[in-house]
């Protein structure tokens, strides 16, 4: 008999014995197999969740603002932080000519797109509600003065009626304050004139004569009445100035959720949806949304939650914002609708709105529906709407304060980062407006400043020497009578140069070359293959150097600043969690295998006594373990895959707070199987099972047949 035939026969016998052993010890096989299967299920689930989170977060950041590689001026003091750093915005030196950098970067193989960016924060002036209403009326007046007054002007009349109503509401509000004020105090006397002005603004006579002197009447309202309304002010906005067309192509994660994208080559802005929700939405509506979210997602209840109770109280006590928005016609309509919806005969607008907002756990859902279905259509829910212009103001690079008007084309949401307070607040602005705000100090501007200084003959006096230099030995206080010097402001103003009209600016369509030529702070680079980030970065730096520009190249993760760091931390926590799951699974499998093998010492001794070689016994144990591992590991993997799919079918794991939302890159985590990590994790479980069985098997083999047969069970 040949050696091969003998080995085959031995193998067959070994396999038969292994199978018979497994079947004979069903309970043991099932227990060990069950543990292996459980370990594999845990590992498959854990690795799928981790993979999905990692891929989702990467896609969110790359697809929203990060791109694959970011380039910025190497002379910059701070590192680039797309979402801001712990010390505020990064101070970056500008890229003087983006067009040159773009051309250089596009010569590098694998570079698909280069997008200019400039990130900054600025103020948006909101004004108080009176100022906003008065600005609207002033625009009407201006138009009427320029184009003549039409016989029928319903908007103009409605705006006037609205202002009169606002004055009436303000008077009612302040009347209560006056009743408790000390009439002998100086403050009371000072403010009496203001109260009197308010009375005038409420009277019919004032409005009847409004058209006789509209500008004078407006100034009366603006300077005497509006200051009594102590709300408003300004809010901060964080934006990325960019080429909107290129941005849209490069960042599919930035989605316009209302309105439309900024038209190619034109000026405009897309406001961050989260920013609009937090800062521009009517406060009562925002509080209702927050209560709804707390109830629906987090299971909180008004009756048991102090914060929700406070929001309800604020809503019922602060109806003024809503009432001030309603002109007399809309007020009547609002009362009519709410009477029908709430089944009440209450006539007072303030009381009926307060009744609507007085919510509890029983009526909340119904009241929420009534608010949005009946009252909201009569209101402007956001202080800025699509089609409006906002004024953004920022201290510019040249030191002067710059302001620009920008039309709002829509609201933008960054997929996966919708709820991230850092990333979701971002708005998108056209690069031309951004450049105006940035106010780059051009050589022409610097020369103009120099010329003004020379003309004034100003000398610099250091703080330390000021008193000695100004009032010391040689100083005198010369007092000379001087002749009156007439000067003509019109001529002086003309010397300041002409300005392009605002309307022209918004109609203008910029060419791609005009958009590219000019300053930017950083550039996002999109690659054909994101796996080539590492090798492309030095090539980009070299290409820029050849074009005479020193730039730094960083990965999207490095550029993500705080968001990148928090993502890194979350990743670490997740990996640690999976590692622990893995370790626990392996320890359980190992223990089960050791125990199972040690139990068979007597059996192994018997086999050895009837002539089985050590090697034969060892291979037998390994075959049994491999078979158990294969069968139950396979079952475990199948079960894991089924659970992953089942989670997906049921809509995924819901995010119940903002951190989970960021982690899941959306409202729910739908785990997906990563083939590589699935195969690796199953292989590791399998290998560990074999290794866990081998050690006790070797121990068992060292036992002599005599010792084995003498040992207790």
């Amino acid at each position, binding site marked *: 008999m040949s050696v091969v035939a003998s080995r085959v026969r031995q193998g067959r016998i070994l396999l038969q014995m292994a199978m018979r052993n497994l079947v004979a010890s069903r309970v043991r096989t099932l227990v060990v197999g069950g543990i292996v299967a459980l370990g594999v299920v845990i590992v498959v689930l854990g690795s799928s969740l981790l993979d999905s989170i990692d891929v989702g977060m990467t896609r969110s950041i790359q697809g929203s603002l990060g791109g694959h590689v970011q380039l910025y001026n190497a002379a910059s003091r701070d590192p680039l932080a797309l979402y801001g750093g712990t010390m505020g915005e990064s101070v970056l030196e500008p890229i003087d000519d983006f067009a040159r950098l773009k051309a250089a970067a596009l010569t590098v193989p694998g570079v698909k797109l280069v997008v200019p960016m400039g990130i900054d924060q600025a103020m948006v002036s909101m004004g108080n509600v009176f*100022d906003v209403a008065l600005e609207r009326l002033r625009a009407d007046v201006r138009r009427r003065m320029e184009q003549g007054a039409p016989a029928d002007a319903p908007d103009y009349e409605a705006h006037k009626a609205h202002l009169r109503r606002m004055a009436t509401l303000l008077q009612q509000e302040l009347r209560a304050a006056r009743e408790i004020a000390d009439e002998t105090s100086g403050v009371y006397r000072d403010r009496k004139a203001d109260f009197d002005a308010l009375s005038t603004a409420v009277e019919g006579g004032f409005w009847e004569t409004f058209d006789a002197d509209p500008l004078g009447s407006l100034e009366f309202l603006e300077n005497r009445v509006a200051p009594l309304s102590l709300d408003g002010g300004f809010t901060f906005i964080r934006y990325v100035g960019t080429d909107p067309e290129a941005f849209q192509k490069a960042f599919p994660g930035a989605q316009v959720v209302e309105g439309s994208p900024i038209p190619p080559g034109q000026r405009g802005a897309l406001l961050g949806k989260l920013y609009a929700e937090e800062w521009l939405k009517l406060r009562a509506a925002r509080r209702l949304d927050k209560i709804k979210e707390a109830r629906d997602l987090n299971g909180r209840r008004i009756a048991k939650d102090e914060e929700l109770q406070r929001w309800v109280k604020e809503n019922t006590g602060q109806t003024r914002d809503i009432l001030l928005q309603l002109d007399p016609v809309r007020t009547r309509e609002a009362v009519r609708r709410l009477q029908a919806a709430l089944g009440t005969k209450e006539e007072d607008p303030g009381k009926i709105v307060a009744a609507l907002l007085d919510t509890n756990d029983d009526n909340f859902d119904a009241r929420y529906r009534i608010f949005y279905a009946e009252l909201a259509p009569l209101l402007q829910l956001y202080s800025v709407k699509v089609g409006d212009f906002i004024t953004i103001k920022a*201290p510019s690079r040249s030191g002067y304060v710059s302001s620009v008007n920008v039309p709002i084309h829509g609201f933008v949401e960054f997929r996966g980062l919708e709820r991230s307070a850092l990333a979701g607040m971002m708005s998108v602005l056209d690069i031309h407006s951004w450049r105006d705000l940035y106010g780059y100090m051009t050589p022409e501007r610097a020369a103009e400043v120099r010329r003004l200084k020379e003309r004034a003959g100003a000398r610099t006096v250091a703080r330390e020497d000021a008193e000695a230099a100004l009032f010391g030995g040689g100083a005198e206080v010369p007092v000379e009578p*001087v002749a009156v010097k007439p000067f003509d402001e019109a001529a*002086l103003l003309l010397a300041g140069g002409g300005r392009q009209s605002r309307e022209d600016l918004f109609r203008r369509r910029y060419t791609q070359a005009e958009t590219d030529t000019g300053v930017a702070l950083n550039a996002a680079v999109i690659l054909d293959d994101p796996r080539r980030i590492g090798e492309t970065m030095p090539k980009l730096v070299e290409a820029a150097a050849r074009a005479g520009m020193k730039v730094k190249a960083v990965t999207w993760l490095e550029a993500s600043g705080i968001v990148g760091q928090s993502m890194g931390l979350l990743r670490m926590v997740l990996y640690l969690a999976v590692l622990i799951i893995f370790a626990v699974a392996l320890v359980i499998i190992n223990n089960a295998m050791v125990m199972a093998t040690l139990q068979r010492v007597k059996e192994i001794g018997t086999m050895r006594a009837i002539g089985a070689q050590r090697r034969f016994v060892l291979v037998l144990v390994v075959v049994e373990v491999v078979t158990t591992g294969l069968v139950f590991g396979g079952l475990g993997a199948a079960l894991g895959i089924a659970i992953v799919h089942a989670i997906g079918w049921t809509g995924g794991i819901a995010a119940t707070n903002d951190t989970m939302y960021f982690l899941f890159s959306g409202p729910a985590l739908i785990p997906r199987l990563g083939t590589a990590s699935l195969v690796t994790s199953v292989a590791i479980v399998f290998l560990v099972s074999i290794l866990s069985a081998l050690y006790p098997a070797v121990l068992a083999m060292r036992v002599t047949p005599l010792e084995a047969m003498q040992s207790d069970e």
Partner: protein
Amino acid sequence: MRTIRILALLLLLAPLPARSLSQEETDRVIRKIDEMERSGGDYKALVYMEAKEKDKTDVVYELLAYRRSGDQKLMFLFLEPKTEAGKGYLRLEKNLWFYDPRVGRWERRTERERIGGTDTRRGDLDESRLAEEFTAKWEADEKLGKFEVHRILLTVRPGVDVAFPTVRLWVNKENGVVLKRQELALSGRLMRTGYFPRWKKVWSESKKGEVWYAEEMRYYDEVEKANQTLLLVKSVDTRPLETNLFTKAWLESKSR
């Protein structure tokens, strides 16, 4: 006896401690400052403004400052540099408005507004109303450089909105002009120091008298130590201004 005489002589020759100003005298000093600077009618000045800030390019402006005594109206109209031309501030009643022709909008500002983003405040170019806005207290008589001065502490009156609630003045004893001014926050922290080394006066027909103005004003920021602002009044005109000048419509028309 001889020793006693010498001692008596020395005592007589020794400088006498400064006599404190009575409250009435202190108030008179403050009222005199207001009166000297009061234009008693219309006033127009061409002003150069320069601000230096740490790590930043110098900011310079040329602007026109208009004021009218009767109803405390005030307006600034920026002329240069080109990018700033047409911007303006308008004070009406207790409101300070800012206008930017680039955006065509009026914005309400507070008394603490930093004019044109510099360390200049509205009050620096407005008529002096110290007696109306503050109560005064004499602190000391001393020397500032080579000048004999009164040092007077001013505290804001209740209900009055000013940029700084406490002010310390060094007033030239000889002619009553302010040479130095320290401005303090409510906490007592020194915020800004101003020096006024050069003064001029111009005849005003409406006042039937002379209007004094500081030709050079230097402000040093005491919080951001590297920041300083210089104001130079290049020329002044006290002839009557257009009646409707202090209106939004006028400023808009000039900026168009």
